[in-house]
């Protein structure tokens, strides 16, 4: 995967190794980071997570020398970060921060092109790269001449990611990149980012204080405790199944079973068979469909199989299936949705179930709270675990 260089956005990724890293601030008795060692394989997302004051942001900023090491070393592809001038090193490492930090006086295009310009690319190459990145981050190149103040929070966040990716760095540092976005948009941005990562396969160090985000985003999760001590470094599955100690267990939380849902997608579990009827069919057909299905409410679909709504008792009393059934099909879930997100969508809605659609928007089944709760109680719940990049 890392060797596939067929596209410009899919070049190499670097491995990163923290080797006995210590950071001590003058005048402070306790070190901010004590003897941190961990290795991130190329192309993986490593999430640094822990309570506030655990040094996770410090650990991240040591990697691009925004903070200088006291002892130890950090190796990128085996080369010490100390072997290059700090500014030059940083141009080869993507950097995304919670406050995003777009330059307010530069257009979106200029913001994204800032590192290529520093690297001396010619104008045409920068323009082409900017357009490519605006498409890649689903922003659209019509935004390139706007200023950051004209964008929504979510758009700015994606511009921040595009800027970090501009020179195609093999390593990205992301410090709470979705921290300033509201929960609904955060979920969307996380999914978009995971989809993006499945294409670009960068090595990513990702800081968050949110264990759910860590489990969702990480291929590996490093749990830090106060003083920058590594409490556990493991895959999300291992973290949930066998926390190393009481601290990690507390931090991961009591709802570990529920959290496992973050590692699964809707397509990983068996759905109910949906009673489907098309607009204009006789309602007798709808009653027949109910008999064969797992739930007693028919879903009206259009010619393409897309859901239009649930039929009510009143709808069933008509001659033919109406094109505007009484109950809207809300929520509509997708096969690729993370199961935990699907569950919160279901819990938010009036109905405890929702139609599941495939990539074309056609109904393939029904997911319900009941299915998920049965699944959680089954031994299957520990299987079907998917790597983070394929999870979105």
């Amino acid at each position, binding site marked *: 995967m890392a060797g596939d260089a067929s596209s410009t956005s899919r070049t190499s990724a670097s491995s990163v190794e923290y080797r006995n890293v210590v950071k001590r601030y003058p005048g402070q008795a306790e070190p901010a980071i004590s003897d941190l060692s961990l290795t991130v394989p190329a192309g993986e997302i490593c999430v640094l997570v822990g309570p506030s004051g655990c040094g996770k942001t410090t650990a991240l900023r040591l990697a691009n020398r925004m903070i200088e090491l006291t002892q130890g070393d950090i190796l990128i592809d085996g080369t010490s970060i100390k072997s290059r001038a700090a500014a030059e090193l940083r141009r080869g490492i993507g*950097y995304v921060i919670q406050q*995003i*930090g777009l*330059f307010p006086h530069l257009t979106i295009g200029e913001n994204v092109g800032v*590192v290529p310009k520093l690297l001396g690319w010619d104008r045409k190459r920068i323009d082409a790269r900017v357009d490519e990145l605006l498409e890649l981050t689903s922003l659209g190149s019509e935004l390139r001449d706007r200023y950051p103040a004209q964008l929504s929070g979510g758009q700015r966040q994606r511009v921040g990611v595009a800027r970090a990716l501009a020179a195609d760095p093999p390593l990205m540092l992301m410090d709470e990149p979705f921290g300033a976005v509201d929960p609904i948009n955060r979920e969307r941005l996380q999914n978009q980012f995971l989809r993006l990562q499945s294409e670009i396969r960068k090595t990513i160090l990702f800081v968050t204080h949110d264990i759910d985000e860590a489990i969702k985003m990480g291929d590996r999760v490093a749990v830090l405790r106060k003083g920058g001590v590594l409490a556990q470094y493991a895959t999300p599955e291992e973290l949930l199944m066998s926390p190393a100690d009481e601290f990690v267990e507390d931090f991961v939380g009591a709802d570990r079973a529920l959290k496992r849902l973050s590692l699964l997608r809707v397509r990983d579990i068996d759905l109910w068979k949906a009673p489907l009827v098309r607009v204009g069919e006789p309602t007798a057909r709808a009653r027949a469909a109910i008999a064969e299905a797992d739930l007693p409410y028919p879903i009206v679909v259009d010619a393409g199989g897309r859901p239009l709504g649930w039929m009510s008792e009143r709808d069933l009393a008509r001659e033919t299936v109406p094109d505007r059934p009484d109950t809207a099909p809300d929520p509509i879930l997708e096969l690729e949705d993370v199961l935990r997100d699907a569950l919160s969508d279901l819990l938010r809605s009036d109905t405890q179930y929702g139609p599941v659609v495939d990539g074309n928007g056609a109904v393939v089944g029904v997911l319900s709270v009941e299915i998920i709760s049965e699944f959680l109680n089954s031994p299957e719940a520990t299987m079907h675990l998917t790597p983070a990049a394929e999870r979105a």
Partner: protein
Amino acid sequence: MHLADAAPVLGQVEIRDRSEASCISENKLCPGWIVDNFDRYTDPLAQHLYLTVTSVVIGFVIAFALALIARRRRWLVGPIVGFTGVLYTLPSLAVFFLLLPITGRGSTTAIIALTAYTLQIIFRNIVLGLQNVPEEARDAGRGVGLTDRQLLWRVELPLAIPDIVAGLRIATTSTVGLATLAVFAGAGGLGEQIISGSNITFKTGVVAAGGLAVLLAFALDVILLGVQRVLTPWRRVQPA
């Protein structure tokens, strides 16, 4: 009127001249006199413009250099504000007379004093502008690999333009006012027409020269505002 039976045109001229003469002798405000004597204001106006612009430009260069030094050594901000503040409080007439034996009569003396008065306000505004740069923009700038110098010229200074121009506007307006005293340093300017020898109480002359000073200040202010608008297009966009 004893000339009432003369030719009507001649009579009008005579009356106007007589009324103007009486207007002046009674030291009233005489617009006709200003129109007739406008020539005598062009050179002082040009001198005034020269004194103002030169002083503000030199003041900006010095304050800018001081601000860049203080950007790296933050402890210097206090002493520099204190020192330029002392300069600012010195009575301008006293400064002119103290400088006269050293630099002699003429525009050099005036420009030295006027420059000294601009330093405080321009320096403070540059420092303020640099302080007002959003911390995340600075952090991101360093994070993407800008050197310290690139960060200053490509991020911090452009973002400080509004504060810097605000300082230049105040400095320019007040320098136009102060420069009317440059006449005591022998540097000419509109002050010459306000306090010129025996005419010291000539009301029409004072109003004309004062009015030109106000117009000059206003014109320079509008120009600076225009420059700022051209340099900061991002401040004119509609927020999302």
